[in-house]
């Protein structure tokens, strides 16, 4: 009887063991099958950031094209790898004309990271078109922008939005006399790359302020070199506008279409708050003329102001540049107002002319106080 009980117990244990050993492998296989990802959507030639860095340059080599497959407005315009061409996957068929004629050109597609399929789908389409050297930078823009020393590029319309919102410092890295004075993006500061080290003090004190560098377009290196220097100085939000001034001019014209100087309540006067903001953030975006006498000017004025006493102004009006708004200042608005009407009378075609209708108290230490006129 006792032997039977032992036998039953042993049999039960054996059965349990068989069940255990029999079930466990089956369960493991099922788990692996569940976890296994479907990678069939992925392109077969994936590259990393090192490969991308080794192949792109400014200007972009003729046998390389970096292609952003993300939507233009929501993604590309707000930040892309410098030099990349925008061919959103949704418009691939419509924009095949943007692809290079040489089918052996290295095409590197990217989009919004490892889960984004747009670059992979675009790459497959490119292969179908006959391109023989197609890669996908799968980690895409999110990784690119997170890597030390890298920076993104904006498109013109995003730069215009930043200017409108007064949300970034725009820096023109081209030479001052031969390029900047002939035309530049409104509100831009002139810090030619060749003078970066001596003029870097013009950059904002707050290292987290967004700073956007631009120069003469996709073949120009100056904005990139300046961006690298700004990053080295510790600026945390550095971007370039890679298509630069030629693109800006093409879209918005040489004149200022996006930034109109807001007029104040008196005819010809500049909005006082706007004037204060310009002086604080972008004093170089206007031509500031102090029309007080030379002795008054010598005792203190705005840093970017030039002195032309109102008595000497008339003969100089014809030579005023037209690439940026002209703003006259004095101590009370009386002489600057006179300067405004004189300019309108002598050179009617000059539209962007204003004066500051306010009491300005210039201090000896370079500071000043602006009060609304009574």
């Amino acid at each position, binding site marked *: 009887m006792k032997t039977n009980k032992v036998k039953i117990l042993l049999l039960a244990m054996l059965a349990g063991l068989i069940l255990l050993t029999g079930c466990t492998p089956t369960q493991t296989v099922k788990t692996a099958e569940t976890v296994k990802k479907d990678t069939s959507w992925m392109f077969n030639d994936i590259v990393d950031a090192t490969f991308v860095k080794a192949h792109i340059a400014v200007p972009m080599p003729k046998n390389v094209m970096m292609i952003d497959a993300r939507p233009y407005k929501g993604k590309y315009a707000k930040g892309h790898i410098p030099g990349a061409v925008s061919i959103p996957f949704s418009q691939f068929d419509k924009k095949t004309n943007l692809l290079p004629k040489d089918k052996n050109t290295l095409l590197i597609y990217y989009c919004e990271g490892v889960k984004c399929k747009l670059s992979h789908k675009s790459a497959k389409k490119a292969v179908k078109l006959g391109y023989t050297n197609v890669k996908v930078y799968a980690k895409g823009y999110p990784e690119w922008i997170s890597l030390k020393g890298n920076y993104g590029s904006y498109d013109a319309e995003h730069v215009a939005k930043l200017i409108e919102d007064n949300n970034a410092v725009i820096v023109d890295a081209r030479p001052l006399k031969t390029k900047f004075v002939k035309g530049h993006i409104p509100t831009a500061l002139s810090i030619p790359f060749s003078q970066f080290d001596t003029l870097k003090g013009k950059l904002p004190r707050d290292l987290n302020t967004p700073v956007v560098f631009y120069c003469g377009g996709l073949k120009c290196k100056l904005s990139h070199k300046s961006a690298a220097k700004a990053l080295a100085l510790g600026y945390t939000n550095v971007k370039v506008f890679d298509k630069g001034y030629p693109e800006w001019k093409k879209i918005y014209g040489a004149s200022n279409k996006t930034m109109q100087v807001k007029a104040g309540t*008196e*005819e*010809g006067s500049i909005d006082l708050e706007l004037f204060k903001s310009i002086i604080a953030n972008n004093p170089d975006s206007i031509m500031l003329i102090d029309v*007080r*006498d030379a002795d008054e000017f010598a005792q203190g004025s705005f840093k970017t102001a030039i002195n032309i006493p109102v*008595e000497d102004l008339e003969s100089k009006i014809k030579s005023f540049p037209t690439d940026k708004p002209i703003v006259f200042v*004095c*101590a*009370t*608005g*009386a*002489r600057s*107002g*006179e300067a*405004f*009407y*004189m300019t309108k*009378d002598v050179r009617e075609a000059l539209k962007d002319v204003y*004066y500051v*209708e306010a009491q300005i108290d210039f201090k000896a230490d370079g500071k000043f106080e602006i009060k609304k006129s*009574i």
Partner: protein
Amino acid sequence: MFKKNMASLMVMIFILVSFSMAFASEGPGGNDRKGKYTYRKVFKACAKTGEVESATPKISPADKTMGQWQEIFENKNFDEFGCKDNWTELPDKDVLDIYSYFYNHASDSPSPATCK
């Protein structure tokens, strides 16, 4: 009774202050900034004809009171300035602007003109 009198007094003071403020801010209504330029322009043109020696006007708004300028401009009596022809040729709007410049920067105005 005392409260009533106080309330009446306050109302009176309020009316008086408002009245004087309204009149104090009342001026000719032209553009004094433009008037300053036009006034100088008149003399520049006048100097070219040789009627006056200097193109810089000698009379300043601070030379008289608001009341005195009011009398001169309302009567259009510009003899003191000279350059009669130039004054005659001026459109009414320009005269009003010059009047505003003189009135707003008269010696007893809140912001009398300096020589600048």
